């Protein structure tokens, strides 16, 4: 790695399992020998609101927060949330987007519209945009709650961590009865994104 610290920003909606996904990622970072810090907010912000996690790893990490415009990877669990936080990325950063749409309250009540042309707007901001259908992938595994680990698998293609580190992290963080389906979800997510050289944060 040419840069000392890698910044991963996770964004989605309360209830999508973002906290677990970020725990798995940070465990994988630790298992790979990195210093790691992760920051999130609990409580009122979680009640169906936008949820974000800052994850930073490298030789030595000081701030638990990612500065705007410096994220290497944005993992968006919901399409609109990708657009909300795309400015967190540096210009050559990568965004992995779940195509799932969850309308926020102003849209559900008919006061506002769900944004159109999100993919186009993302591509106007960032060259490296990867859309994945994590919801369908999880439903194919008969476990809707595995969307978060499908996304973790997809995002793993852009992180400099060995595959075994993720598996070890999943084993550590998940109860035995949910382990198998989540290992499958991780692999299915990985398969959704074909790793391209030069697209990941190096």
């Amino acid at each position: 790695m040419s840069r000392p610290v890698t910044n991963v920003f996770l964004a989605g909606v309360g209830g999508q399992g973002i906290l677990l996904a970020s725990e798995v990622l940070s465990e994988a970072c630790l298992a790979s020998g990195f210093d790691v810090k992760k920051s999130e907010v609990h409580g009122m912000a979680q009640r169906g609101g936008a949820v974000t996690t800052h994850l930073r790893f490298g030789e030595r990490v000081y701030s638990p927060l990612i500065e705007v415009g410096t994220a290497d990877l944005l993992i968006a669990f919901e399409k609109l949330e990708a657009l909300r936080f795309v400015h967190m990325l540096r210009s050559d950063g990568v965004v992995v987007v779940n195509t799932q749409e969850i309308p926020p309250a102003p849209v559900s009540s008919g006061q506002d519209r769900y944004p159109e042309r999100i993919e186009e707007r993302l591509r106007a901001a960032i060259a490296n945009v990867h859309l994945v259908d994590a919801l369908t992938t999880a439903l194919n595994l008969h476990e809707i709650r595995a969307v978060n680990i499908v996304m973790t698998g997809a995002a793993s293609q852009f992180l400099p961590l060995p595959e075994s580190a993720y598996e070890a992290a999943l084993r550590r963080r998940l109860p035995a009865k949910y382990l198998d389906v989540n290992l499958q979800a991780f692999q299915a997510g990985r398969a959704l994104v074909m790793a391209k050289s030069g697209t990941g944060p190096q």
Partner: protein
Amino acid sequence: MSSTISEPDTIRLLSGNEAIARGAYEAGVRVASAYPGTPSTEILEALAEYEGLHAEWAPNEKVAVEVALGASMAGARAFAAMKHVGVNVAADPIFTASYTGVRGGLVIVTADDPEMHSSQNEQDNRHYAIAAKLPMLEPADSREAKEYTKLAFSLSERFDTPVFLRTTTRISHATGAVPLSPVEGGPVPLGFVEDPAKWVMLPVNARKRHVLVEERMRALRAFAETFDGNRIEWGDRALGIIASGVAYQYVREALPDASVLKLGLVHPLPEGLIKTFAAGVQRLVVVEELDPVIETFVKALGIAVEGKERVPSLGELNPRIVRQALTGEAGRVREPESVPIRPPNLCAGCPHRSLFFALNKLKVTVAGDIGCYTLSALPPLKSMDTCISMGASIGNALGMEKALGPAARGKVVAVIGDSTFVHSGITGLINIVYNRGFSTVIILDNGTTAMTGAQDHPGTGKTLQGETAPRLDLAALCRAIGVEHVVKVNPHDQAATEAVLREEIIRDEPSVVIAEASCALLPEHRATVRPTLEVVPELCNGCKACGKLGCPAIEWIPLTPEEAVALGKKPTQKGMMRINRLLCDGCNLCPDTCKMRAMVEAAQ
């Protein structure tokens, strides 16, 4: 967790809160008490996973501190944790515990919430350390959170004082690598030793203890000069920055070349070390979140220093804010895209939505309280008029009633959650009865402390560990207080709820309505099967009446004139509603809003 985490000499990823729990465990803490409150809640939840200690939820923070102090009197290492505003509740015993001192080490965590991620104010609790004359440690990451917790116990015993450990949200809820160590123990033998001069704070004794408090502060000021958690990291001498807690991390990130005086003990502050640092740098700046506590101290030493004229007093800091404040430049960044907001909301199936929907029909002033239900103050429900502090709804309602006189009859209610009522609503209700009020108090009994993530309390009949406990009977309690009219109602039954509210609110004597229905997130509620609903597209006329519920499962589908006609509707119908079956809880509230009877049980 306990099986793996108790292995010594290993490194674990722990949140600041988990690290504090680990530190208390390694210090051999014997009794720990807390009331849940963001961002402190997970400390006791993590501590409850360890064996060989008593960890409990107390009804409120004052009780938690009193329990911990009692354990300290008996020679045990003792611990209490709370959010910043919890210290307001616990301040009474804390200020006098400063005089009595301790036997077993006593550590009190204050978890502050700059930015008010989940709080009603962003008070800076470093002021409490100054006012109560107690030492305060402030860790800057999870590793320090564990180490400082252990240090706090030994300082407590060494200086005969309770010790504050202060975190902020970005310490409590940030995760980092923490090396684990084996369990130690306190040096004091168990057993209460009679010592009235120390424990009985009659004025005659307290006057003598106050002398000792001042002596202790002198000793602590000397300790602060040599404490290795207060350290100078020399860099470029052109700029010297004093910082503590997470602000230290932001400084190191934003200005890696600057000289830094990192403070681990934020009260009392090290006068000599600050003078040495100030003399060694050309420009001195204090970077601290919220109030100018360190800055004011440095200025009182007669040292030229910059601070709040550059560094914001409002909200959290971050590396960008720090860089901009000190260098005037932060670099250009992309503007955020304009997208619809996603505010927090009551869950699908939340019993609070049902209660407030019924209450809104009565057009009353609603004195509100602290909990998930505070979200009902937001559109579209907009059904709460005040929110001040834990338990305040009841006193606020009586105050309005007394101010307005007979005009208030049938016009003012208090709304309070079950956990909040137990925390500090009971005395307010006693006051209504005692002072002959007629306010109606509505207790939203969802069987948990929902806002902080579903913690048990005396009314749930379960302990912190999930074990069965005697269940506080709220209805019997209210009757014992002297409220004759105590009515339970299921808020999901709209007709019954509305009828009960109308009857009780108009009464000219005190009444309590207990709206009893499980939090929609509790596992036992989610395990029960209720039919979900769907909207019959042919029947929906797009009136949006159900949208007034703000239910996340109800979604507006915009229609073009062509689409509307294709569905057999007028071309002027702008859209229709749909129920998201993945989110629908089956609470059956929305049919009550629909004149077209478009909501029906979904085909399975």
